[in-house]
């Protein structure tokens, strides 16, 4: 094992197809036109000294170290800013260049501390490397002169000196070590797109500053880590490196937070994680990261982790630690007893979208082959199940159509019901990069998300619709496109069913779908809607990105179909820069769906009623699969309340906190006789569990995650599981105890079984992934290296299907008692129910969920900023503190759901998507009023949670 060192080519890769050849130090080098001389040199293996260049950002030409000589040209141009040209003859090392470089380095070092031995960057410092490279042996100027290094000069305070800024929990800024190369400023601008950093002052006074001379924590900084990664010295350094030291080996792995699926190098010292550094060859993130993946991994070693299995008779009892064997036997006995008593279909399981594909596959296999039923579901039920259904109906595949690179080729982006800068930050940075280069942006969202207007990015149109009216608005855009003749007839005739198109075109053209008519429903200005539709249809490559603001509605599946219709009608399918792109919530929510986690589908989205598919598994597993769909999560809970569903194995999901209508979830769980929770922590669901099986983190196991672009990425074990076993081993041991003959020795064998049984995964193996880095399914004989863009020549289902999408108002309506609409979302620093991020220093950015309310609505109710308010819906009530802002329109309130004490889901209702039962989180009619503090429910809940987390002390055997 060794540290993975990535080559830094100094400037970004040239994209021209025209190749040119030049000579550098006697070597002929052929590169795309537009490539810098620095990069061309590196490609020939010649490292030109540099301090202010890296291939993540554009050349800047400030450090004056990378100078070269070019035959026939005067002077010594900087190789980073000088493009390579046909026939140039370049020299990178001459006496003149050597003298200049040594002189430049001498100046740098004359204003830099000489504490190399005790410096955190020792061994990983480009300044140190360059001093060595140019042969610096002496600094003639001494260190007594004007400087930024010493707090005092000659007993007097040195005004130029600035103290360390340690305000960010994850990295420090030490101005005394800064060489003003501007790499951090440019990384913040070009890679992250936040523009939080600047150089303040001029000449020798120049210094890096965050915001208007704020501390990092008080500035606009989003803590993505791009500046720290770019810094060539110890000026910006991870606190973990300061504390532990330099890493000695690393492995490439995949982040376990959102559906972007960023690749990271986990840099280690022994089994201790020193830092996570984004991997440049990661095809989802291209070397970028966000605060969660880069820094928020501390939960993996948090003291709250449960490391021993536990059982209890009743949920009111304290937990009792037991051996793994005892736990497995207890579960197996209980499940068999329940099935004997209440029937084969009285138990089920939930797979985790946070676990690996291999682990998910095993849980559904345990349910189907071990429990002998199809009662398996996954948390995609509550997020993107409408995506699966809608895209399957229209295109034939339950997944997004593009890769993330596609955004670099788009001309018009429409974002519906997603907030990428908070929910999918690395994708947002890649999108912003494209927008700064001129692509246009349309945002359809009830709330003014950051992308509506943020430094150097402004949406052409923001359609602030009323929550719950997506179908009306998207169908109305189709109305404009069809009635104004802006559709792509050639594409539609070639690729779609023309009769279905005509039926749909007639449907959308009817006057009740005109923007003028739907304004009453949606509140969107007809003029804006018309202009946005025209821009999308005529602006070049049009792409649609959407999130849970689309799916989590009564008409979630209908909106997905409406989006697919729009993409087909405008010919925006089947090439780079276009497509329908669901932004998936969790790291492996795509994968968990692919692996057969739904009760009606076997791996690869094949319906359980299909005999030939069942036959494959019947033969391989030596069983007889039931041909009927099983229960979905909400149906399981209903059946539990009815007394026909009594036992459940839940891997890595917290349904009590994440699922709607908390009281109903609690009632369902309380009605069961054996609830098994397999998780890292005693989560909220565990309050109702009888057995707790400790889980392992993504750092502790091998496997794969599949991200939102269908990309199968490797997860690599970098440390031993603290609980002793990877999650796939726990499931396997449980299966064995239940009498199944499973003998997987490594997750790769599980993936081999997936490949063997599932045509879209036929070519996937760990060997292939190790070789290629990652592949996007389908990956099989037809596409041996995977499929970046889908539906290129024809749709997966043959002809694309246009489907009528009539707007039907949700039954969750406002009225005199509940006049406001509550919608929910998330924030950058926290993730989902917060089980992980709340156990990291990320809490510094978001200690509590707040209720965003418009100043007008707040004033009417006498609510001031920061006041405790009571939010009441038809389902229940909760309290939290108000945040007064005009980001929400009047009539709309908004909150996040990262903290269990908020109990946001006590107020969400049991309304759900008509096709998939995906809950309608995004629309709840509420009233908001002043409050004195927590609600009765919150107090009762806290007490119950506290009691149910008690663990009995282990008795000494001698007593």
């Amino acid at each position: 094992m060794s540290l993975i060192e990535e080559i830094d080519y100094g400037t970004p890769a040239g994209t021209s197809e025209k190749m040119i050849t030049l000579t550098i130090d006697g070597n002929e080098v052929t590169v795309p036109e537009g490539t810098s001389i620095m990069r061309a040199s590196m490609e020939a293996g010649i490292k030109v000294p540099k301090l202010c260049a890296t291939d993540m950002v554009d050349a800047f030409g400030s450090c004056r170290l990378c100078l070269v000589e070019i035959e026939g040209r005067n002077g010594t141009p900087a190789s980073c800013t000088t493009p390579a040209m046909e026939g140039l003859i370049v020299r990178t090392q001459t006496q003149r260049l050597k003298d200049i470089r040594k002189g430049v380095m001498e100046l740098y070092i004359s204003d830099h501390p000489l504490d190399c031995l005790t410096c955190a960057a020792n061994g990983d410092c480009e300044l140190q490397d360059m001093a060595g490279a140019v042969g610096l042996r002496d600094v003639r100027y001494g260190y007594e002169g004007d400087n930024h290094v010493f707090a005092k000069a000659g007993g007097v305070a040195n005004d130029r000196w600035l103290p360390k800024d340690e305000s960010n929990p994850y990295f420090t800024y030490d101005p005394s070590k800064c060489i003003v190369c501007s790499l951090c400023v440019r990384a913040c601008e070009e890679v992250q797109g936040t523009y939080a950093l600047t150089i303040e002052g001029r000449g020798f006074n120049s210094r890096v500053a965050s915001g208007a001379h704020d501390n990092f924590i008080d500035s606009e900084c989003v803590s993505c880590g791009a500046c720290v990664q770019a810094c060539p010295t110890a000026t910006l350094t991870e606190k973990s490196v300061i504390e532990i030291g330099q890493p000695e080996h690393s492995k490439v792995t995949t982040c376990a937070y959102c559906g972007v699926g960023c690749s990271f190098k986990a840099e280690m010292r022994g089994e201790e994680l020193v830092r996570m550094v984004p991997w440049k060859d990661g095809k989802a993130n291209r070397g970028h990261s966000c605060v969660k993946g880069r820094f928020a991994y501390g939960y993996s070693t948090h003291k709250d982790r449960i490391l021993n299995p536990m059982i209890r008779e009743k949920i009111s009892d304290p937990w009792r630690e037991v051996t793994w064997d005892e736990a497995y036997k207890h579960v197996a006995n209980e499940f068999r007893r329940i099935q004997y008593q209440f029937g084969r279909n009285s138990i089920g399981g939930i797979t985790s979208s946070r676990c690996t594909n291999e682990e998910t596959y095993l849980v559904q296999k345990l349910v189907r082959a071990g429990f002998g039923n199809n009662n398996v579901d996954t948390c995609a039920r509550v997020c993107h199940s409408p995506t699966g259904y809608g895209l399957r109906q229209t295109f034939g595949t339950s997944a997004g159509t593009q890769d993330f690179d596609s955004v670099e080729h788009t001309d018009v982006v429409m974002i519906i019901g997603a907030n990428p800068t908070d929910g999918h930050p690395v994708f947002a940075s890649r999108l912003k990069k494209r927008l700064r280069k001129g692509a246009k942006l349309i945002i359809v969202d009830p709330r003014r998300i950051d992308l509506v207007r943020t430094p150097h990015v402004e949406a052409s149109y923001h359609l602030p619709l009323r929550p719950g009216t997506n179908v009306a608005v998207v169908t109305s855009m189709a109305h404009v496109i069809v009635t104004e003749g802006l559709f792509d007839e050639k594409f539609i005739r070639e690729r779609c069913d023309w009769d279905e198109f005509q039926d749909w075109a007639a449907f959308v053209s009817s006057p009740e779908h005109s923007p003028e008519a739907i304004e009453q429903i949606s509140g969107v200005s007809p003029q804006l809607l018309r202009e946005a539709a025209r821009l999308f249809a005529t602006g070049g490559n049009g792409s649609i990105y959407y999130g849970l603001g689309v799916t989590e509605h009564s008409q979630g599946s209908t909106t997905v179909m409406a989006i697919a219709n729009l993409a087909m009608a405008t010919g925006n399918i089947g090439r780079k820069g276009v497509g329908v792109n669901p932004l998936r919530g969790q790291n492996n929510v795509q994968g968990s769906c692919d692996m057969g986690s739904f009760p009606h589908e076997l791996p690869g989205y094949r319906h359980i009623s299909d005999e030939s598919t069942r036959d494959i598994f019947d033969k391989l597993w030596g069983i007889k699969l039931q041909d009927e769909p099983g229960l979905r999560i909400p149906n399981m809970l209903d059946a539990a309340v009815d007394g026909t569903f009594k036992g459940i194995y839940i891997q890595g999901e917290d349904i009590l906190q994440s699922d709607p209508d908390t009281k109903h979830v609690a009632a369902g769980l309380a009605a069961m006789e054996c609830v098994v929770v397999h998780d890292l922590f005693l989560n909220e669901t565990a309050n109702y569990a009888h057995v707790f099986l400790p889980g392992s983190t993504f750092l502790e196991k091998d496997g794969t995650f599949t991200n939102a672009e269908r990309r199968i990425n490797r997860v690599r074990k970098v440390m031993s599981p603290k609980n002793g076993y990877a999650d796939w081993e726990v499931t396997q041991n449980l299966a064995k105890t239940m009498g199944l003959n499973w003998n997987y020795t490594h997750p790769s064998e599980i993936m081999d079984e997936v490949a063997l049984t599932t045509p879209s995964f036929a070519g996937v193996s760990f060997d292939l992934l190790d070789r290629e880095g990652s592949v996007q399914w389908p990956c099989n004989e037809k596409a041996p290296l995977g499929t970046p863009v889908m539906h290129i020549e024809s749709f997966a289902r043959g002809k694309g299907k246009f489907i009528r999408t009539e707007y039907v108002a949700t039954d969750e309506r406002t009225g005199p008692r509940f006049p406001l609409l509550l919608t929910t979302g998330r924030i950058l620093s926290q993730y989902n129910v917060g089980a992980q991020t709340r156990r990291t220093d990320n809490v510094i950015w978001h200690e509590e969920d707040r209720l965003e309310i418009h100043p007008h609505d707040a004033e009417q109710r006498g609510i001031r900023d920061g006041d405790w308010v009571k939010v009441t819906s038809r389902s229940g009530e909760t309290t939290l503190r108000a945040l007064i802002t005009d980001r929400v329109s009047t009539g709309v309130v908004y909150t996040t759901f990262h903290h269990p004490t908020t109990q946001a889901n006590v107020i969400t209702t049991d309304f759900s998507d008509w096709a998939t039962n995906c809950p309608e989180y995004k629309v709840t009619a509420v009233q908001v009023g002043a409050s004195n503090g927590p609600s009765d429910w919150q107090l009762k809940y806290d007490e119950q949670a506290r009691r149910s987390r008690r663990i009995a002390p282990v008795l000494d055997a001698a007593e």
Partner: protein
Amino acid sequence: MDSKSHKTTADKLVYMANQIAMFFHTQPKDEAVAGVADHINHFWEPRMRAQLFTILDQDDNGLDPLVIEAAKQIRKPGPVPA
């Protein structure tokens, strides 16, 4: 923590079936009946369908006429294998 849900499972099933019917009402007429039946056959677990048939047997069951029409094409659940 003994709170009961405010709706019975039967209420929910009627509501869900009607939601499905609502979508297919807007589709071409000849596809609507088969559409409702297919959807329920594809996604409803046998005990849910069994409950639906019980509801169908009641007068004033609150079901959308399209669901009632589709019922002929909804599969009767067989016995659960032991």
